[in-house]
């Protein structure tokens, strides 16, 4: 019996030894064996003692193998790599440096910088913003902008526009004096283009058979509004990330606003990228951004009624032209928050409405065209004079929001109290439903507007792009260009005979005529 038991336990030991040998067989690929691996794995479990170790044993095993691999790689030196975050941190460091200016006291008296921390506080109450830390960085960047651009008289955080690749932070500034560089530049370009056209025309004349010229005449261009008025009342600066340089946006032209109303595109985040759209947008993304900013401002910048007042002194004479200026009302007492939440008529627009023409003040294009014709001296009688177009009139400045039109059965504004539990200290919050992302708050005498969103208007059921114009009419089809079947030989012969007969008759007639004439003589 003993011998049998011995032999069975021996056999078992032997098989264990065989299995151990199997376990410690090195893998041909990684040159490790399972025995060592299990030892290491169990050592790791003993070391770390993870909770519910059996559930994560696969991952532990994986980690053990990875460690082995990394160990072998460690004789390679680390590649120094600067990440984007490090680069940005280096740039943002400049925001936190303190400038030691002697004139600081003077600046304290009247600084173009808004009270940033207060605005941040109220925005958080209202449930909008970009995060506390980010807001702080943005405000430091605003400070940087104001310091670098001494022409800025007043500056404000307008908001943020999200893009697919990066976002734009937008600052609105009022300047002391307006630069006219751009206008000149554009004028030069136009002149150059004309010259170029003239050259090509000359070239055409030299050829024997000139190519046909297009008779298409573009509709007259609506002139741009001057800096400091209408849609170009403010200058806008954008930056991608606080700390990166601010870029001044070009002024907006009516054509850009008109096209921006018809298209619906995401911003990419690069100012110089083209806007691929139908109808084609005149300009690049910077221009598109500026046009959208103008539209959003006109639609959603609001203030409590009575905060601003229009200059009443120069009363009735100027009634025809819409007023575009207002002053801060020194007697404004503030409207109670409950009232501001209750009724939309306590809020007013303080930015001019942009007309269908793409301008805030209407210009009569028909008059201008006549002048052009006189200058050109070329009479174009064929064109009928268009009827005197009716003057477009937008709602006057400081119109209450209660007069805003309802679009797609949605009220354009939603009001709310920032806090329901402590309503006596809450702020009134206004949200635009037409421009998702546009908010305004008011609390006592303080108010602010901000826009954080994609820069797109709500279009209700869905956007339908404008159709391309109808194709041009073909040449009018008449008998002279209609195709006909060639006559057969028989038909030709019949025709010839008929012609001959006619001729013969004619001759006979002539003869008789002559005879008669002779008779008369």
């Amino acid at each position, binding site marked *: 019996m003993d011998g049998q038991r011995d032999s069975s336990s021996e056999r078992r030991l032997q098989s264990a030894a065989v299995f151990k040998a199997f376990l410690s067989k090195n893998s041909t690929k990684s040159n490790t064996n399972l025995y060592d691996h299990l030892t290491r794995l169990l050592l790791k479990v003993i070391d770390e003692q993870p909770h519910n170790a059996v*559930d*994560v044993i*696969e*991952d*532990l095993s994986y*980690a053990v193998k990875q460690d082995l691999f990394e160990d072998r790689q460690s004789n390679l030196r680390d590649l120094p790599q600067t*990440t*984007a*975050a490090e680069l*940005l*941190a280096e740039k*943002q460091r400049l925001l936190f440096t303190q400038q030691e200016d002697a004139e600081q006291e003077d600046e304290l008296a009247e600084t173009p910088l808004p009270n940033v921390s207060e605005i941040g506080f109220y925005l*958080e*109450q*209202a*449930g*909008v*913003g*970009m*995060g*506390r*830390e*980010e807001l702080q*960085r943005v405000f430091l960047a605003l400070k940087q902008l104001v310091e670098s651009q001494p022409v800025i008289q007043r500056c404000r955080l307008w908001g*943020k526009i*999200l*893009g*697919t*690749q*990066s*976002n734009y932070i937008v600052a609105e500034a009022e300047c002391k004096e307006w630069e006219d560089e751009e206008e000149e530049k554009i004028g030069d370009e136009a002149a150059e283009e004309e010259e170029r056209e003239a050259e090509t025309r000359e070239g055409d004349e030299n050829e024997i058979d000139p190519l046909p010229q297009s008779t298409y005449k573009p509709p007259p261009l609506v002139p741009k509004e001057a800096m400091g008025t209408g849609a170009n009342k403010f200058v806008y600066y954008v930056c991608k*990330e606080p700390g990166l340089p601010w870029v001044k946006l070009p002024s907006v032209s009516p054509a850009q606003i008109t096209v921006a109303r018809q298209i*619906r*595109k*995401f911003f990419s985040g690069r100012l110089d990228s083209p806007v691929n759209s139908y109808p084609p947008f005149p300009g690049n993304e910077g221009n598109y951004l500026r046009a959208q900013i103008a539209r959003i401002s006109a639609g959603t910048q609001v203030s409590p009624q009575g905060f601003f007042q229009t200059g009443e002194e120069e009363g009735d004479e100027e009634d025809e032209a819409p007023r575009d200026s207002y002053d801060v009302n020194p007697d404004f007492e503030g409207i109670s928050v409950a009232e501001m939440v209750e009724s939309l008529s306590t809020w007013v627009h303080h930015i001019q409405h942009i007309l269908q023409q793409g301008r805030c003040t209407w210009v009569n294009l028909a008059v201008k065209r006549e002048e052009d014709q006189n200058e050109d001296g070329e009479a174009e009688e064929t064109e009928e004079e268009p009827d005197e177009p009716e003057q477009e009139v937008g709602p006057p400045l400081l119109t209450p929001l209660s007069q805003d039109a309802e679009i*797609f*059965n*949605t*009220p354009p504004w*939603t009001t709310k109290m*920032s*806090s*329901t*539990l*402590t309503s006596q200290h809450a702020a009134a919050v206004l*949200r635009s*439903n037409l421009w*998702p*992302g546009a908010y305004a708050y008011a609390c006592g005498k303080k108010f602010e507007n901000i826009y*954080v*969103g*994609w820069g*797109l208007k*709500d*279009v*209700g*059921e*869905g*956007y339908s*792009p404008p159709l391309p114009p109808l194709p041009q009419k073909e040449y009018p089809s008449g008998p002279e260009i209609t195709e006909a079947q060639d006559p057969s030989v028989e038909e030709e012969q019949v025709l010839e005979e008929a012609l001959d007969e006619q001729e013969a008759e004619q001759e006979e007639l002539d003869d008789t005529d002559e005879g008669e004439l002779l008779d008369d003589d």
Partner: protein
Amino acid sequence: MDSQTLYFSLELVAGSGHILNIEQRTALQTSLMILRKNYKFGRVLFWGKILGLKEDYFIAQGRGEDELKDKKNLYSFNCMDWFLLPPATNCLINEVSKAARGRFIGDPSHVYERVLRIHLEDDEEHEEVVKVSEENRLAVTIHWIDEEASVVPRGAFIKNPHGIVQMNRSFCGLSDSEARKLDSFLHFREPRNQKESILGMCELNQTIDFLDVLSDDIPKGSWSLQFECARKVCVLRSLLWLGLTFYHVPVTPHNGYIYIGNGYRNLDLNFML
């Protein structure tokens, strides 16, 4: 996003413009804790907010043992009192897609009504009136958003041998370079797409790669991937559901998504890219 990490994660998605004010945040901290206890959820997520014309819906999502299948959605107006939403069945989805139009009102009992005219073959017109309540619409909308735009980083969830989807406890975050690529992010829904080839499959890990990859979405470019918060946090925004923001801090397990928006799909996406 997980209610446990709400105090810092809301700050990371604030770049989209919407934040919760301090009153709502503190209310959520209290009420979600009670919610978890009462409904016996494994964990509770603050899912987001749907903006209505009169009131906004705050949405919370309770998750059970299987994170993918055991989901329950609740809504609230004041962040304290929560109401359970019905599950989105196929029949409900059909009704909602037919009847519901326009913006959310903010009244769960509001009934959307729509008369559908169906032309039958023999020139007869058949009128069908579809009615659906806003509560049901809300349930379906949340279901749609979860189906089409909920995101998790690759490896954050595993399917265990019993087929149950759970959080991966040993997930320690994507690396910086992985977080730059859209194919390290997965749709957190029942997988729909067939893996294209065996060759493509051999590199995948069955326990991790059981979900669909974002980079397969149609149209291409329906996601915006950026690095925000001083370029330290990876932020994904859905362009199909404007308002959905996902964050992940690389090399840490922190991730989550939130939806704050109007609650409708961006049908114009194809014109806008």
